[in-house]
Each structure stands twice: as C-alpha cells, then as structure tokens.
C-alpha cells in the first residue's frame, strides 16, 4: 500500500517535470531531454511485465497528449519496458535482486546503474528519434540527436535520484 502511494506520487511528479519543464528547455542542435523512463525503471523488480507494459502505455499517452507528439513517446517507452527484464537478467548482480529493495543508484551501486539504465536509455532514445524522423538518409542526424541527448538525460536522471530519493533503505 505504501509502495502504491509512493509510485503514484512519482507518476504525477515525473509527468509534470517532463511535460511542463523539460519539454520547454530547447538547447538546440537536436538535444531533447527525456527522464520519464526513470519512473518505469524504479518500479519493483518482481512486477509482472504485463502490468509494466500497461503502466508505460498510460504514462506515455499522458505525455504525448500534452506534448502533441501523438504516440512517439509511448512507442519508445513500451520498448523500454519490454526490454527492462531482459537487461536486468543480463546485468544481474552477484547475489541476485532483493525484491524489497528498490533498484536505484544507491542500493545497487553506481556502476550497475550506468550499465543497466544507460543501455536502456540509449535504446529508448534511439527508438524515439528513429520513429520521429523515419528517414534513412538522415541517419547521421538521428545519431547526432541520440548521442547528444542520452548523456544529458542520464545526468538529469541521476540528479533527480539524488534530490528526491533518501539514501537509507526505507525509501
């Protein structure tokens, strides 16, 4: 019950941060900041993937409806949620995942977070810009956008965790 409230507060907080603040920051040269995958990433490890996909569909659609992107965010987020269990299995820690502990940067370490979240965020950004531009002859522009946006989004995700998540295990 406690977990449910925390995650629903996070849902609205990340929706507001993404739609009203980060979408208005336009640095130029194709940089676009997207931090909402962090919400899907921080959901419990044991959660059924069907629920994971449904939640990401709802979150993506609400971001799309505010940003007028008509479903690109949803599509990228769905691929993020679908690949999450696979990547988690790939980078499993030595003693496995503790179902009670949240998978954030403090509990599982900085190196694990970079490997796991970095891979997923890169796939998310690549998917997003590929669908958005949808042209083979502008592949270099897509790659420019991906390689410029991913590190900045990643840094903001780390910053958000340092700001809003307590270091102790009780969340």
């Amino acid at each position: 019950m406690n977990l449910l409230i925390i995650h629903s507060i996070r849902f609205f907080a990340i929706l507001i941060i993404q739609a009203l603040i980060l979408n208005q920051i336009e640095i130029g040269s194709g940089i676009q900041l997207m931090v909402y995958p962090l919400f899907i990433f921080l959901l419990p490890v044991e959660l059924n993937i069907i629920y994971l996909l449904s939640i990401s569909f709802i979150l993506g659609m609400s971001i799309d409806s505010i940003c007028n992107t008509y479903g690109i965010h949803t599509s990228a987020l769905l691929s993020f949620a679908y690949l999450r269990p696979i990547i988690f299995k790939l980078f499993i820690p030595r003693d496995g995942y503790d179902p009670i502990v949240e998978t954030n940067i403090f509990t599982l370490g900085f190196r694990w977070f970079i490997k796991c979240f970095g891979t997923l965020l890169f796939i998310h950004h690549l998917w997003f810009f590929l669908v958005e531009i949808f042209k083979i002859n502008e592949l270099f522009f897509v790659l420019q956008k991906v390689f410029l946006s991913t590190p900045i989004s990643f840094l903001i995700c780390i910053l958000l965790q340092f700001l809003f998540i307590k270091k102790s295990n009780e969340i």
Partner: protein
Amino acid sequence: MRNFIAFIKRFRVFLFFALLQGITFSIYFSYLQFPKYQYLTSASLFSGNILKLRNNLTKHFYLNYNNSILQKENIALMDSIPSSFIKLDNGLVKINDTIFNYQYEYTPAIVINSTHDKRNNYFTLNVGSKQNIEPGMGVFSSNGVVGMIHNCSEHFSVVKSCLTKDINIDVMVEETGDFGLLKWDGRNSKYGTLWGISNDSKIKKGSKIITRGGGKIFPRGIIVGRVFKKQVVEGKPLWDISVKFSENYNSLQRVYIIKNLLKKEQEKLESDTPINKAK
C-alpha cells in the same frame, strides 16, 4: 487448438507488447495526417488547462518585448484611421461602399504552449470552437506567418506551425512573382526552405517572400521571410532556396487567426470546373 493456446501462452508478453505498439503506431500515423478526436492532443480540456496554468505563470517573462510589438502595431493602426487624416476635399460624402466586401475576419489569440526544437512543432492557442475557430484556418502574427489550425476543441486549438515537416504554405517572391511551397527541414527554427521555383528565374538574396493567397487560407501579402541563400538542386531544374523567417518562433506570444469568409464560394466554384469534376 491446444498448440495455439500454448503458443499464445508462450509468447503472451511479446504479443501484448506488439498489440500496444500497434495501437500506438496507428494513433501516430492517423493523427499526423488528420486528427479525429481532441482527446490525445493538447486541445483536450485536461492538457489545455494545465498548459493555460503554466502560461499564466510564465507569460510575464516576455512582457517588455510583447509590449513593444503591440505598441508598434498600434502606431501602424493609428496611422490608418480616418481621424488621423486631414480632409482636403469637403465635397465628398461617405456612402455605403459596395466595391469592397469583407473577405477575411481576424480573431486574436495567445499562444499557451509552443516548442521549436522538435521534428514537428505544434502550438496551443487559448481559443477554440466557441470563438468560431475551425481546422484549416490560417494563423499569423504581426511579424509573419505562423501556421494553420490543425485541431480544435471548445476552448483550445492546436496550430500546425511553419516548423512542421509538411506545412506546404503557398508563398511567392514579391519582386518576381515566382511561387512555390514553403517547407521546413527539421533542423533550425530560423530557416525554412522554398521549394518549386525554376532555376531560370533570377532570385536576389534578401528579397521578400510573402504569401500568395492561392491556398484559400491566407490573404496575399503576409510576410514570411527573406531569401537567405540559394543552391542548385542536382538533377532538377529548380532552386533550393533557404528562407530566413521574419517571425521569431522561440518567443511567440500573440497571434491572429484568419477566417476566409469567401472560402466556400471559391471551393464550390473550383469544384464545378470540368477538370476537378473528372477526378
């Protein structure tokens, strides 16, 4: 049958994923062409109200700039009203003029949400169908063309701006009269492309580009921008002209919506011509 159920059980996660992706892509491609409902755009009441709230907080940031623009516009209007002219001939009497008829109606609006860095940029306005706004109307500001209304609800509307892939506004070069289509390549919000002018016409750098008035949306003569540079398109007898927009879309606040009162008449006349009937 048992095999089929086993198959679904085995791949149920992937099937669910594919189903959701399919729904998303069908929404994406249908909305990109023509939005059917308002629910999933910022014209919906929920998203619209959130954006209105945000605009109420941030609109004062550009107050000085906007005031100076409004002042300039006021001066231009003051110059044109009858009381600022001296009557030279007292013998003239004003009668009900039948030579001029209203063709365009203007509605003022405020941009409550805008982007300029995405692939397709849509602006949200604070007026909707209650103010007689319909999809397909033109939008411009005192500095130049902004776009067309893409979708509208009761209180909000979404503008497909000049910073969209297939905006295709009918424009022409003022000096020579050559006309083409305005496009955007998706990179820089300051420059657009003018497509379709044949390369035997002489286009000077810096010449003014205005709307042509052929598309039944904008009247002739609204400024779009100036010619920035021209290049030869390989394999085609066309110029690739890059246009510097006169409007700064990054800080756009006040716009006007044009309603063409004679649009239906023109459409009916054009659809009655034999060429269009044959289609």
